[in-house]
């Protein structure tokens, strides 16, 4: 069947009309005094990627409500990576070359962040801040001096989670633990670290089973882990696969004792599995020190999105964006990537004035930074402080599920986390 010429012409006209309607729609060309732009390259076409991007946009909204950065409105250019390296790198290159952004937020998977870092941001002297790339390769790259101080990530090293997970398993007296892990760079890192940590405390890892995304059934994987009859599970999974695996596991009679990473600190997971099966589950997470700033972010998020900020990468994404915007404020108008990167230390100075992660906090911080003082940003993931490789470590918190959400049961200060890690070696 051949489509007639008039048919194609009509389709083309309709498409052109739709595009111009989009262009003419309100909310695009607003005449502002000045606008400064940052770029964000995030997997918005993936279900778990969209909330991460939404949280980054939310941080920009908060900054704009507080008066913007250097008196200008902040605009975040958002491009999708489609979790493909070549698409993400192209998007980042377009934003760096054509839109001339001084900072790129992104990406999530290390397989996309790494080529962006090596072929776009470092050669162009643009700062790159990732909320969620977990691979240890970045630490090695930075230690070798290849990132020129332009790379940062608000993703606390997985070591904090796994060492605390091993500590909890030991305290609860588990002797044999099976591990389910997401088969990507983060999950593979987690399983390596947690297996080593569990072994160090004398617990046997009976099975380490990779879970690939989007499979219709995980029965084979669950059966493999079930056979040696472990006392408990360690889960390094995202909510969607976590729900499928845990439901399969429980229905086949697996133990309900579980230790999980912060990726499963999610309402979706709690509702998908059912609270009556999650009584013996404990989770780990990185946290803020016990100040009211932690709840400040949660309240702010809840008032905007009408739900708790539970989900992989949300708090990290918020902090990543806020630190970038505060550093831009400190570096002054028209500063380039390297100048902004140099000011990150001024925003996360332990000796500086503590500021909260909300509108008032941003206003206070802006004033202090403009006066040349330093601040100590108290973020959603904690008192963020980067080491010389752009990594963060943080205090830990232990949590469990309740009927309506999540309850934090224990706080472990940073010194104690580090001491425990040192003991494990």
């Amino acid at each position: 069947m051949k489509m007639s010429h008039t048919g194609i012409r009509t389709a083309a006209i309709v498409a052109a009309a739709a595009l111009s309607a989009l262009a003419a729609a309100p909310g695009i060309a607003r005449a502002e005094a000045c606008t400064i732009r940052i770029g964000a390259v995030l997997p918005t076409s993936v279900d778990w990627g969209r909330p991460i991007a939404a949280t980054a946009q939310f941080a920009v909204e908060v900054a704009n409500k507080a008066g913007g950065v250097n008196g200008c409105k902040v605009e975040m250019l958002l491009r999708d990576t489609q979790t493909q390296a070549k698409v993400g790198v192209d998007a980042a290159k377009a934003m760096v070359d054509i839109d001339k952004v001084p900072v790129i937020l992104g990406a999530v998977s290390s397989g996309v962040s790494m080529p962006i870092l090596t072929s776009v941001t470092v050669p162009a002297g643009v700062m790159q801040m990732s909320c969620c790339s977990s691979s240890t390769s970045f630490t090695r790259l930075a230690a070798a001096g290849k990132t020129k101080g332009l790379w940062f990530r608000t993703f606390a090293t997985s070591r904090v989670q796994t060492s605390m997970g091993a500590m909890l398993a030991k305290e609860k007296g588990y002797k044999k633990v099976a591990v389910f892990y997401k088969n990507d760079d983060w999950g593979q890192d987690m399983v390596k670290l947690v297996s080593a940590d569990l072994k160090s405390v004398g617990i046997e890892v009976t099975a380490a089973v990779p879970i690939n995304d989007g499979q219709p059934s995980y029965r084979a994987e669950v059966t493999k882990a079930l056979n040696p009859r472990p006392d408990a599970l360690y889960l390094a999974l995202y909510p969607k696969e976590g729900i499928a695996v845990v439901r399969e596991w429980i229905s086949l009679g697996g133990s309900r004792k579980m230790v999980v990473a912060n990726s499963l600190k999610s309402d979706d997971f709690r509702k998908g599995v059912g609270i009556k099966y999650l009584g013996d589950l404990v989770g780990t997470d990185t946290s803020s020190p016990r100040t009211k700033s932690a709840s400040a972010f949660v309240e702010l998020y809840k008032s905007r999105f009408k739900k708790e900020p539970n989900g992989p990468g949300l708090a990290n994404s918020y902090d990543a964006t806020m630190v970038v915007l505060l550093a831009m404020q400190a570096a002054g108008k028209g500063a380039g990537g390297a100048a902004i990167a140099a000011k990150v230390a001024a925003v996360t100075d332990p000796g500086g004035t503590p500021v909260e992660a909300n509108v008032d906090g941003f206003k206070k911080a802006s004033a202090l930074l403009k006066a040349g003082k330093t601040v100590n940003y108290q973020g959603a993931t904690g008192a963020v402080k980067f080491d010389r490789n752009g990594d963060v470590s943080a205090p830990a918190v232990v949590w469990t599920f309740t009927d309506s959400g999540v309850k934090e049961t224990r706080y472990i200060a940073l010194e104690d986390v580090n001491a425990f890690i040192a003991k494990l070696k």
Partner: protein
Amino acid sequence: MIGVVSYLVFFLTIAAILAIAVLGLNLHWGNTGLFNGGIAAFFGMGAYMTIILGGTPQAGQFGGFGLTYPMALAGGVGASGLLAWLVGVATLKLRHDYLAIATFGVAVAFESFVRNTEWLTGGAKGLRGFERPLEAAIGDPFLFNLCFLVFVLLVLAAVTYGLGRLIRSPYGRLLRAIREDEDAARSLGKNPARTRLASFIAGSMIIGTSGGLYATFYAFVSPDDVLPILTFQIWAMLIVGGAGNTKGALLGAFAIWAAWTGSGWVLARLAPVEMQLYTGTMQYILIGLVIVGMLLWRPQGLLPERLVISQSGGGAARRSAQSV
């Protein structure tokens, strides 16, 4: 202005690298009629082997043999040729859909292998530590990108010229004969099985070259680079451009990559702020519409193959044929 030029250089480099892969697929499908559903495996083999052979030694990572760049690239090309030989011997007895499924299975197995064999391929975190050739010597990043673009264009030109000569040669006619009517070719004493295998290996080595250049440009490769979406992209480029002719393959590569990246840029520019979160999903829809639209408009491809009918008779035979 310099920013736009810098971006265009970058864009053209990737488009040219993908165009080399499309030329390899054109040899498979356009010339020999082999439905290769496993492009990602040969691309990935070229990419991974180039980085393993040419990379600098990295802690906790296999490889880093530090060979010179031409050796590393040649190793990558050779490895994809070897993989093609193994796959071809196993699967080329199959036809059409069955060959497509079998080769697709090979690609999925390859991706699974590189994702899980952490000690060899770095697993999901990929392989890094590749020093791009002459990057330190050139110094300026823009100049390096420009030089690399010139290098890739030279490789593309060489492959285009080589394939063009091949198609116009007796060997090219043999490939077309096998594509159109295998029994007739066999009845003339040709060996279709061996010819098909040779064509499969040659096309896969071209795809492997593309993979090697890709890995060189990013100085990094990970399992996310060898997902089935890559096979789809190369196929879309060939079909839209016009299977069976070199110019069509090249045009398709540049057109589809332009549509793929351009759609993202256009949506980011034009979509209202409230819709920004959904531009990623809309981009997929837009890409699909572009491909479907192009195929509805010109199903034979932008530059269709001009069928060459070998006439040894000359003018008289043609005139008598026309009058019939």
